[in-house]
Every structure is written in structure tokens, then in C-alpha cells.
């Protein structure tokens, strides 16, 4: 069942840890995300809750996938497992060929740091800390030297169009700006995967469009794989592929054949952003 033998995984993880430039290329070949028979059970008192049951999922590099489903459907659990925040009770989760489901706590921290960028509904920026320092945070845990950290963080802020707000604190930024800082934080490590959990849930429709344009542009220009949880249909409609989760199972897996029209392309939207 395991396509990648354990020693290969370990070697790859080491390559990832070393931040080798080859790593990203090596990850391109196989499907980036592969779930095989993944399930998650929670024991709450006498009951066992089957939050996720036998999920099979394969996401190639560069795909924009929307995950939809009612609350309690298991989509949060799926996202937590995809984000290596949680480990499956059974089954295998390979990220870039590395079996990450069985790794230790610190290994999973490493995977989150190297391969995954998170964008949360509530932004989760550190309060009373400048945008720049927030963006630097993942690099801090990578041991990047200060000067290099600053350079990469400024570059990421530039990419989301917030170079001029580098020294602003989260409470001095609008919701849309805060989410763009969070996206810059997710981008700064150049991860192959971006996991966004209701990224526009706290935003109005105008800023929602700006943030979505930015995310789509990253998929298009950077080849980033975007997995996005949403309950808004028009957002799901922008994805290449929509996965519906219900009762812990993947109920539907649809490909959007034609991207919705009537929206400006990424770069234009970014340039017109405030």
C-alpha cells in the first residue's frame, strides 16, 4: 500500500528540513496530497465519534480545491489532518510522498513549517506585534538569520501589496489587510500547500473578492496548491474542484469545468487593491 518506503520518507523529510532547493521539485512528481483510507475517531466519554471515515483523496500540485460541508460534517477534522495539526486514527496521509501521519510531534511541526501555509478565518495574527514581525514568525522557527528573515518577510508583504504597512500592528489594519498579512505569513516560507479555513468568513464582500483574487493569483502564478474550506457557494465556485464532506465521508468530488467569468484576473486586482 505504501508507495514510498519508510527510508525514502525519512530522507525526504531530511531534505525538507535542510530546506534543499531540490525538495520542491522532488515533490512535483507524485500527487502532492494523498489520503488512503484515512479515518479519525474521537472518544468522548463513553461514546466514540467517527469524525472521518475511510477517506480517499488525491490532490495534485497546483490545484485549487474547495472543501464544503455543514458544520459537524468532518471538514474541520479533514483540514486538521491535512494541516498536520492532527494525526489520523488509521489510514495513511502522504504529503509530497512523505508519510506524515506517523511522524512525531516535532516532525509534524517541521512539516507544517516547511510544506504548509495556514490562513485562518480569524487571521490569528499576534496582537501588539507589527505586520512584519508577524510575517517573520514561521522563519523564526526555521532558524533563518534575522537579516534574511526581514528580507523575505518584506518580499512576502510586497507580494500581498502591504509593503507600506510593514510596521503597522494588527489593530491598525482593516480586516482585509489583516488577512493579507496572514497570507504573507503563510507565503513567506514558500510552501507547496496553502490551507485556508474560511479565509473570508470575517470579511465583507468587497474585501472577500480582493482576498480571493490574491489567493487565486498565487495558485496561477506560483503553482501553489490551495485547499480552502468554505460554506459560501460563490467562493467554492471559483475552485478547480469542490469536495463535499458529509458525515465524515466525501460525498461528492466535482470538477468545475469552466471557471466562472466576470471577474478580473489576479494581478489586476492586486494592483488596484488599496
Amino acid at each position, binding site marked *: 500500500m505504501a508507495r514510498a518506503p519508510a527510508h525514502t520518507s525519512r530522507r525526504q523529510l531530511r531534505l525538507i528540513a535542510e530546506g534543499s532547493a531540490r525538495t520542491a521539485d522532488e515533490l512535483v512528481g507524485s500527487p502532492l496530497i494523498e489520503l488512503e483510507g484515512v479515518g479519525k475517531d474521537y472518544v468522548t466519554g463513553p461514546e466514540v465519534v467517527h469524525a472521518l471515515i475511510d477517506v480517499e483523496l488525491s490532490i495534485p500540485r497546483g490545484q485549487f480545491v474547495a472543501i464544503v460541508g455543514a458544520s459537524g460534517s468532518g471538514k474541520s477534522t479533514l483540514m486538521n489532518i491535512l*494541516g498536520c495539526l492532527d494525526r489520523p486514527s488509521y489510514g495513511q496521509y502522504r504529503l509530497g510522498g512523505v508519510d506524515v501521519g506517523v511522524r512525531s510531534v516535532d516532525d509534524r511541526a517541521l512539516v507544517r513549517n516547511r510544506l504548509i501555509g495556514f490562513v*485562518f478565518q480569524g487571521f*490569528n495574527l*499576534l496582537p501588539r506585534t507589527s505586520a512584519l514581525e508577524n510575517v517573520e514568525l514561521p522563519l523564526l522557527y526555521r532558524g533563518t538569520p534575522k537579516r534574511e528573515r526581514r528580507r523575505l518577510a518584506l518580499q512576502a508583504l510586497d507580494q500581498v501589496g502591504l509593503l507600506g504597512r510593514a510596521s503597522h500592528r494588527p489593530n491598525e489594519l482593516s480586516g482585509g489587510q489583516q488577512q493579507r498579512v496572514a497570507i504573507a505569513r503563510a507565503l513567506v516560507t514558500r510552501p507547496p500547500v496553502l490551507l485556508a479555513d474560511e479565509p473570508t468568513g470575517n470579511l465583507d464582500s468587497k474585501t472577500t473578492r480582493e482576498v480571493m483574487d490574491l489567493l487565486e493569483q498565487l495558485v496561477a502564478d506560483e503553482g501553489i496548491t490551495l485547499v480552502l474550506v468554505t460554506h459560501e457557494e460563490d467562493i467554492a465556485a471559483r475552485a478547480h474542484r469542490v469536495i463535499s464532506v458529509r458525515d465524515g465521508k466525501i460525498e461528492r468530488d466535482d470538477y468545475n469545468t469552466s471557471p466562472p467569468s466576470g471577474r478580473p484576473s489576479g494581478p489586476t486586482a492586486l494592483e488596484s487593491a488599496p
Partner: protein
Amino acid sequence: MSAIWESVWLALCSIGRSKLRSMLTVLGVLIGTAAVVTVVALGESAREQVSAQIQSLGSNLIYIFNASGEGQSQAGERAGYRLSVRDAEAIRRQVTGLKAITVYSSTAAQVGSEFESARVDVVGADQDYVTVRGYEVVSGRDLTLLEVQGKAKVCLIGQTASTKLFGSADPVGHSVRIGRHRFSVVGRLSPKGQTPFGTDQDDRIIMPIGSWHARVSPGKAGRVDMIIASAPDSATVDGLRNQMDQVMLEQHRTPPDGKRSYRLLTQDTFRQNEEEIYGVLSVVLVSVAAISLFVGGVGVMNIMLVSVNERRREIGTRLAVGARRRDIRWQFLAEAMTLTTLGGIAGLGLAQGGIEVLEDRLGWAMQLNFAAVLTALGTSLTLGLVFGLLPAQRAARLDPIEALRHE
């Protein structure tokens, strides 16, 4: 190394974000550190002070006192076993190797000069008193053997008594009056300061013991309060002490109850007693200070636990972007240690202030020495480490999903 400074810097930033709370948190550590440092400085200074006072009594001294207490001295007194000038004479004749030996009796009396009148200690002694006690005659001359034998109406005067009676004038050549007797001042003594027992050794006039018995304190002819001998060096003190004991036993037949009517003490005995007292005192004071440090540490732990709880979302975010457990643990540990060290530094400042006040009140020279500073910083750092461990551990053990869910 740079990683450590980076952690410290981040900790300082975090502390800076809640200044008031941080200040209140470290108050316990601050006071505890200040208490420890002040107490150590005070103890050291007191020890030096007492040591200097004991030194001021003279050097390598052997004392003979009248035994007192337990009713036995009254029995002895009735039987006539009291120290007398004759005992001193016997020792002077029979014990060889003593540097000097003298007698001492004292009483407070109203003493007048042509300017002033004041209450001063009046000491009866002999020509060797100044030598034994290590005074120096800074003006005029010492008492002579002839004056002592002849019970002459002369005296020496100490610094304090001189100032009281004569102001800044040189008293030598003037006279003092006690009751209806006049004594001419033949010499002025160098100042010595306080004894370990708190009496001013300079607030006195010294006259021949015969004269003292005849004119100042009549009715106790020949009796003295103590005999003081000085050995040439510390090695001979014990031997000479035993010889003196032998002579005294012969002089004073053993009383019916078998107890000696006198006590022999050496200067070392004082020193040991004082050391013991200060040893106990330091242990007590340092214990109190240690308890306050402990309480301060518990305060830091308490606030750190609250802080970990409040910052669950921050911890979750850090874990999500790739912080390992040890990163989180170290972050909170660094924060606790930075906090307590800041408290320690502030405590040193407070101690410096306290020491200045104490110096002023006690008139002792005290100072914050390097060891005290090192102790304070070491203690506060350790305090942060010990009491920061539990909160840091708790932070590191947080489940990222739970932590991120926290509002």
C-alpha cells in the same frame, strides 16, 4: 548565543506589552531579592563592626570577672571572695610572660570642669591600663607607677568625655571635679569607639585605683570589677590563662559549694560568642528573605499560568506555523527568567537604597559587593527557571487544534 539574545529580546517585547502586570508580578521577586541582598550586606557589615569592636578592646586579652548569678556570687561575696588589687599583684608576681596586667573598676559619676558638668564613667585602674587596652596618649602623658602607688589626684581623659567637659579645648593641664575632689588631667586618650556591649570606651576618665577607692567609690577598698591581662601573642593566650587560673585558685580558696568565685575569659571567647550570635541571626534573616523569594516565585508562576491560558491562541498560531514544543517551552521559560531577572535588578536598586538608609541610621559602612550582586542575579534567574518550568511545560503541551480554537 544570538538565539538566546533573540529569545530575551522577544521576552522583553512580550513583557513590554503588559507593563503594569509584569511590574506587579515581579514585585515579590523584587522585594525578596532586595531583602536577601540587604540582609547579607547587613550581616557582613555587622560582623565587621563587631570584629572591629572586639579588636578595639585590645589584643590577646585575658579577663577575670567576678562570677555572677545563681546566688553563688552572693555566697562568695559574703565569704570575701571578690577580685581585688591583691589578685592582680599576685598574678603580676607569679605569672611570667604576660605583656601587661591591670585592674579595672568603674562607676558613673557627675564630673565637672570649669566649663561644663556631665555624667561620665569614672574608671579606677593602674599605670598599665592604657597599654593593656591599647589606647594611645595623644596629648600629655600616661599615669605613672608613683601616681598609682601614691593614690594621686590625677586622671586621663577619653575623647568623648573630653569633648563633653572641655569642648574642643585641650584638657591637659586643666582639672576635673568629682564631688569635692579635684583631679588634674595629665593625658588625653585616642578615641576607640564602642565596645561590643555598646558602651562608649571614650566617655570615661581614668585614675589610679587607690584614688578611685578613696574619693569616687568609697567602701569597697581593694575590690575591683575585673582584672585584664594581655598576652604577647595569640599562641600564648591559653597557657597564660591557665597559669592565671592556678594563681587565682591559690588566692581564693575554693568556696564551700565548690564553685569558683571568678570567671576567666579570653578575647576569643567574645569573638566566638559574637560569631555564634551573628551566625544564628543571619540564618534567621536569610530564611525570612528566602521565604519572601519563594512567595515571589509562586507569584510569577501564577501569573505565567494565567498568561499561558490567555495566550492559547497565540501558542496555537505559533505551533501551526511550525514551532516545536521545545520552542514554546523555551519561549515561556525565557519570559519567566527575563521577568525575574528584571525583578532581581530592580531589587538590587531597592537594596542599594535600603543600604544607604541603613548606613545613615546605623552609622556603619555598608556596601553592595560584587558577590551580593551575583547572588541576586543568580537567585532571580534560578527563580525564573524553577517557577517558569510548570507554566512553560503547560504551554508546550497544548494541543494546537484546541489552542487555535480558543477565543
